[in-house]
C-alpha cells in the first residue's frame, strides 16, 4: 500500500502487482471452469430467467391471493377457496363484475374497431408521397407522444361543459350544452374518443410501415390489368397486410382491455359507474378499500381475457403469415 500526500489530503491507493496477478489468474481459472461449451447457453439465458422469475413471481402470488380473504384492515389473510370468484360471478360486488365486464368489452371493441379503420385510412393516405409528406407523417404521430394521463387531463379541459372548447364550437352548430364526462350517457363514448385520439397514430404508423413493406410487383401487375382501387384494396392490400393488422390488433386489444390511467384520470369510473372498467373496479377494491383478495380476482379474470384474446390473435397471425408466404 502506498500513501500519497496530496494537498494535505491523504489518498490511499491500492497497488499490489502480485495481488493483482493472483486475482487475475484466479479469475481466469474460474472463468475456464464456469464458462464451458455446456454452460454457455445456460449463462446466456440466465438474465432472461431472472427477468422471467421477477415477472412471474408477483403474477403467481396475485393468483394465489385471489383465493384468500386478504384485507389488511380486517386481519391476516386466510384461504377461502373460490369465494372471491363466486362473489364476482354472482354480481354481488359493488360495482358489479358484470357491469365492469360490459364496460371493458365496449371500451375495447369500440377502440379497436375505430382505431383500425381510422389508422388504416390515415396509413393509406400517408403511403403516397406528396409535398411535405415527411412533415405530415411526423405531425400525425404527435398525439401518441402524449402520455395517456396527460391526454385525459387535456381532454377534460376541452370537455368542460361551460368553459370547454367542444361545447363552445358546438354552440355555433346549434348543439345543446352537454356534460360529456359528467353525463352517464356520454361518458364512455367521450373516454373512447380520448383513447382514439391518443392511439390512432400508433395504429397508422405501424400500418404505414406494413404498407411500405408490401411487395410492389402484384400491385403493378394489377394496375397494368386495369384493376380498380377497391379491387386492389380488397384482394391485394388487405390479404397481404393481414399479419401486420393482427399485430396492431394484438397491441390495441391488450392496451384497451387493461386501460386504467386514462379512464381514472378522466372520470374515476363514474358517473353512475358508466366507465367502471374491470381494471378501475379492481383499483377501487384494492387501492381504496384494501380488499386485495377481491381485487386480485378481478385482475386474474382480466388477465385470462387478455391471454385468451392474445392466443387467438397470435394463432390467426401465424396463419396469415403462412398464407402470405405461400
Amino acid at each position, binding site marked *: 500500500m502506498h500513501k500519497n500526500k496530496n494537498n494535505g489530503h491523504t489518498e490511499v491507493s491500492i497497488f499490489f502487482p502480485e495481488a493483482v496477478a493472483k486475482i487475475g489468474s484466479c479469475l481466469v481459472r474460474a472463468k475456464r471452469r464456469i464458462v464451458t461449451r455446456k454452460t454457455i447457453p445456460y449463462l446466456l439465458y440466465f438474465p432472461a430467467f431472472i427477468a422471467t422469475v421477477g415477472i412471474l413471481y408477483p403474477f403467481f402470488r396475485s393468483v394465489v391471493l385471489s383465493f384468500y380473504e386478504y*384485507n*389488511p*384492515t*380486517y386481519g391476516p389473510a386466510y384461504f377461502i377457496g373460490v369465494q372471491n370468484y363466486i362473489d364476482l360471478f354472482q354480481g*354481488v*360486488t*359493488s*360495482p358489479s363484475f358484470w357491469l365492469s365486464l360490459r364496460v371493458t368489452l365496449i371500451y375495447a371493441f369500440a377502440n379497436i374497431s375505430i382505431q383500425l379503420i381510422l389508422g388504416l385510412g390515415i396509413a393509406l393516405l400517408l403511403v403516397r408521397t406528396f409535398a411535405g409528406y415527411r412533415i405530415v407523417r411526423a405531425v400525425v404521430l404527435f398525439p401518441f407522444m402524449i402520455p395517456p394521463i396527460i391526454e385525459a387531463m387535456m381532454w*377534460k379541459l376541452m*370537455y*368542460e*361543459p*361551460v368553459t370547454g372548447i367542444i361545447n363552445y364550437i358546438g354552440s355555433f352548430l346549434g348543439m345543446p*350544452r*352537454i*356534460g*360529456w*364526462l*359528467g*353525463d*352517464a*350517457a356520454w361518458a364512455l363514448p367521450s373516454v373512447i374518443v380520448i383513447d382514439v385520439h391518443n392511439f390512432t397514430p400508433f395504429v397508422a404508423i405501424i400500418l404505414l410501415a406494413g404498407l411500405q413493406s408490401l411487395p410492389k410487383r402484384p400491385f403493378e401487375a394489377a394496375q397494368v390489368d386495369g384493376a380498380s382501387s377497391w379491387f386492389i384494396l380488397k384482394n391485394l392490400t388487405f390479404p397481404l397486410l393481414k399479419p401486420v393488422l393482427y399485430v396492431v390488433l394484438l397491441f390495441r386489444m391488450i392496451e384497451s382491455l387493461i386501460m386504467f390511467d386514462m379512464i381514472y384520470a378522466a*372520470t*374515476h*369510473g*363514474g*358517473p*353512475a*359507474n*358508466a366507465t367502471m372498467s374491470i381494471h378501475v373496479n379492481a383499483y*377501487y377494491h384494492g*387501492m*381504496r*378499500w*384494501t*380488499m*386485495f383478495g377481491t381485487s386480485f380476482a378481478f385482475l386474474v379474470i382480466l388477465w385470462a381475457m387478455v391471454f385468451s384474446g392474445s392466443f387467438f390473435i397470435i394463432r390467426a397471425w401465424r396463419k396469415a403469415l403462412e398464407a402470405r408466404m405461400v
Partner: protein
Amino acid sequence: MLGKRGLVLICLGLVLLMVLSLNGFAQEKKWLLPPEKADVNWAAYKGTTLTIGLNKHPYTESLRPLIPQFEELTGIEVAYVILPEEEFFEKLLIDLSSGAGLFDIYMTSPMFEWRYQYAGWVEDLLPYYNNPKLTDKEWYNREDFFPLVLRANEWDGTIGGGMGEGRWNGIPVMVEFFVQAYREDLRKKWGLIVPKDYPEWYDVVTKADEQGGADFFGIVERGIRSWSTVHSGYYTGFNSWGQKELTKDLYASIDTPKAIEFTKIWVKALQDAGVPGWPTYTWYDGMESYAAGRIYMYNDCDFFAATYENPAKSTIAGKSGYALPPAGPDGRIASNLWTWALGMSALSRHKEAAWLFLQWATSYHSMIDATVKHDNFNPTRKSIWEHPDVANMVKNWGAYPGQYAENVNLMLTKYGDIRWTPNPDVTAVGDIWCDALHEAYARQKTVEQALKDSTRGINRVMRKWRIALGIEK
C-alpha cells in the same frame, strides 16, 4: 397610623406580590415561549432523517417554510414527499400495506385513521405525550386544542362508537366545516333570502340559476365518484334530517323515507340548478368555479373563504356571505367535520424523533406562524383562533363584519362534529353511496331505487364487521 416599619413592610409585600404574580404569569403562559424554552432535549436525535408524507393542501404550504426552523433546532433532517390527494393516499397505502415504512409521519384524518388503526399502521401518540423525557406538557399545552377536533382523532376501536376515547391517532392541524357560501351582492340584487331549510334552499338556488343566465349556475357541489362527494354538503344535510348511514347493527340505513326525501331535494337541486357535468367536479373545481364568479352558492368547506376573499385568487372578493347549513325538518343543524392531522407511522424506525417533530409542528409557536404568516385555516388551537391577528384576518369575511368567525364559533361549539359512524371501511361505504347519487342524478334510477341498490353494496362491505361482532353468522 402606620409607622415607617409598617410602610416598608407593605412595600416589600407589594414587591413580593408583583414578583410572584409575574412568575405565575410566566408559568401560566409557558406555551407562548419559543421551543428553545421548553423542557425538551431537542438535540437528542441529532443526525436522524425523517420522511414526511404530505398532501398538496394549504396546510402543507404553511408547514413547508417552517421546517428549516425545526432542522436548526434539532439537527434532524426532514425530507418530505408532496402528492395530490388521490396519489398521496395511494402512495401511503402502498407504503403502509407493504410494510416498507418510508414515511415516519404522514398527513391523515379520522376517517383514514379508523382503517389504519385496525390495520396496525398508525402509532398511538399518548405514550409519547406522557413521556416526560420527550414532552414538556406545560409548554405543549394540549388543552389548548379545541376538544371537538382533538376528540375526532381519538378512537378506542369500537365499531359504531368510541370516538374521543382510547388511542390518540393524529394531531389536528386544521379543521373545516360545511357551510353555505353564497353571493351576497347577487342575493341583494335579486331579492333572495338566506335559506333556513332545504326546501327554501332549493327555491333559492333555482331562482338564482334562472336569474344568472346561461353561463351562471345556482349551485356547485363536489361530484366525483368518491366518499368525499357524500361527506361534505350532502352528508351535512342528510344528518341534519336526523339520518345516519348505518344502524347500530351496522346495516346501511341510507334508504329510509326521510333519507329518500332529503336526497330527492338534493339531487333535484343539482339537476335543476347545478353545473352541467356535476359528477366530474372535485372540491377544487367547485372552489375555482365559485371564485371565478360563475356560481351563486357552494355548500362546502368554510375555509375556502380564504381563497374567495383573496383578490389575487378570486374575482368575487368581498362579495360573499357565509351562513350555517340549512336545517332539517325539525330545525336540526348538523355539519360534518373534516380535520387534517399529522400522524406517526407504526412502521417508523425513528419514532422518538418523529414525536419531536409532531410536538414542534403542532405547538402554539409553529401553528401561529402557519396561520398568521401562511394562511392555515381554520386553526385547531383555541389561542390561535382567538389571537387578535387571526381575528383581524377574518373579520371582514362575510356579509357583515364577523360573520365568518361567528359561523366557525357556532360550528366548534354547537353544530359541527364527525357525523360518520366510526368504522374502518367508511371510505368504501361513502364510495358506494356516491353511486346512488350519480345514478339518481343521471335519471338512470329513481332516488329510492338508487339508494336501495347502494344499501345492498354497503351491507356486503359491512358484513365482515357484523360477523366479527357476532351480529351476523
